[in-house]
């Protein structure tokens, strides 16, 4: 696989772009691997990449039921931030954010990380207090954020109506090095590097069963036959409960639909990401000019990858008040993804009750931003059996009452 560079572009320009190779190969599955990862989304591929890069484990297969990056990796609103309240969250999300800074160079693949700044609007007194508390916590955690005034909000994002009427902007939590990245490119970039290291990415390979002997995992059953492994990583987001039931355990997770939409493309008018958690809406402008809008999650279990219409209505209604200029915009596309919600709205990166099985799930509505950090920590957990990044996110925390409670700090939109 050739290296991407300005010289490669120039070389190909002279030969009508006939020399570009496939970014990753599509081999048949072998009979046995050291490690199998179920789920070729961002988290699964990042895990495989850091297993190879940091621990030299390259006899790895990544199995995917559909196509690479076709789940929530391709369905999110691409926001990257790390301004969380609790220490374990700040650690893993800040690790992820800092890895995003150099990810394009690391992967030799342009993930278009754009640290344009993320602003979380405080529109009630309670939010003002909450975000000030988060800003103080972030200082102690080494995450650079600040609480800014409504005037500064208006200065950074002139299209915001800060006076209300119903929910005036009282300030905002501002993370200048937060931003967005190209979501597909993150999955593709990791996939390309994994393939380069000799790992097998097997698409259209659905896992139908997990085989274990004497309480230890020995392999999986798939629609392409049985594959053996020593260690199994389950990284399947919304379908975690479904896969866990194959291995014979339950998870503290409920799957619900979360929706997003994009408008028709317009000229650049907004160069920051704005989140308004009180009214359940967040918005940024893509490089193509579309306004990318995310809303709230459904309140009931759902696996259909489409959500309720009234959520779209509520989200748009809320955003029109804060951004009056979008009221004439036409919406181009709307879609839904299945998010896996835990009781404390924090992820699970843990050993599973079956020996050799590791589970990475529960990222809920905010998994994209965590992809590099999640992969980094989960790879360490799978290789060494423990990782400082994942220590706070064990499955046992629900039994022991040691929650990483972000449900209050992060709100729904997260």
């Amino acid at each position: 696989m050739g290296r991407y560079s300005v010289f490669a572009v120039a070389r190909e320009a002279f030969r009508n772009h006939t020399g570009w190779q496939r970014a990753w190969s599509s081999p048949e599955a072998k009979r046995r691997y050291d490690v199998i990862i179920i789920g070729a989304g961002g988290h699964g591929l990042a895990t495989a990449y850091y297993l190879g890069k940091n621990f030299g484990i390259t006899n790895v297969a990544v199995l995917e039921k559909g196509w690479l990056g076709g789940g929530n990796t391709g369905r999110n609103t691409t926001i990257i931030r790390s301004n969380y309240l609790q220490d374990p969250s700040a650690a893993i999300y800040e690790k992820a954010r800092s890895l995003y800074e150099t990810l394009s160079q690391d992967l030799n693949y342009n993930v278009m990380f754009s640290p344009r700044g993320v602003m979380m609007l405080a529109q009630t007194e309670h939010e003002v207090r909450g975000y000030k508390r988060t800003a103080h916590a972030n200082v102690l955690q080494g995450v650079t954020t600040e609480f800014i005034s409504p005037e500064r909000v208006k200065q950074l994002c002139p299209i915001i109506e800060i006076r209300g009427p119903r929910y005036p902007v009282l300030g905002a939590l501002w993370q200048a090095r937060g931003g967005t990245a190209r979501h597909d490119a993150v999955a593709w970039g990791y996939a390309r590097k994994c393939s380069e290291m000799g790992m097998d990415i097997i698409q259209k390979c659905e896992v139908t069963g997990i085989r274990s002997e004497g309480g230890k995992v020995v392999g999986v059953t798939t629609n392409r036959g049985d594959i053996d492994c020593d260690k199994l990583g389950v990284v399947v987001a919304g379908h975690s409960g479904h896969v866990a039931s194959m291995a014979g355990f339950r998870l503290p997770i409920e799957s619900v639909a979360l929706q997003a939409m994009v408008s028709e493309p317009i000229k650049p008018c907004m160069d920051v990401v704005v989140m308004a958690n009180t009214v359940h809406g967040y918005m940024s402008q893509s490089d193509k000019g579309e306004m990318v809008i995310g809303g709230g999650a459904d309140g009931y279990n759902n696996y259909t990858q489409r959500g309720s219409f009234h959520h779209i209505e509520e989200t748009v209604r809320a955003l029109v008040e804060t951004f009056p200029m979008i009221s004439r915009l036409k919406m181009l596309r709307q879609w839904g993804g299945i998010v896996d919600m835990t009781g404390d709205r924090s992820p699970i990166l843990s050993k599973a009750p079956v020996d050799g099985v590791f589970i990475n799930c529960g990222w809920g509505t905010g998994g994209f931003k965590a992809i590099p950090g999640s992969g980094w920590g989960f790879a360490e957990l799978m290789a060494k059996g423990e990782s400082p990044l994942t220590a706070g996110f064990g499955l046992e925390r629900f039994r022991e009452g040691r929650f990483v409670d972000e449900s209050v700090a992060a709100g729904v939109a997260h």
Partner: protein
Amino acid sequence: MLILTCPYCGVDCDETELGAGGEAHLKRHGPGSTDEEFESYIFQRENPRGVHFERWRHAMGCGKWFHAARDTATLEVFGTYVAQAFEPPQEIKDKITAKRPGWTWRDVA
């Protein structure tokens, strides 16, 4: 939009009229129970991709809680029944078995 029939007032309710209450028929563990039992009651969920029993409240109507049987993969509703039930009525079970051969009621929690 999801439409459920309130078993008390007989109204076909849009989901905006209802409040979702999560998985139904959980075994409620009380004082003196073990940590595992509390974990099971408070956090562990079946979360199936398919037939699901759940609690709903007719929040913008009579205000009462009721049960619904629904498929989370197709959004098909099999029926609703009163809150004072430890398991779904036989007619709903029969309806589900007819449409989902092989499905059986089990005490999950």
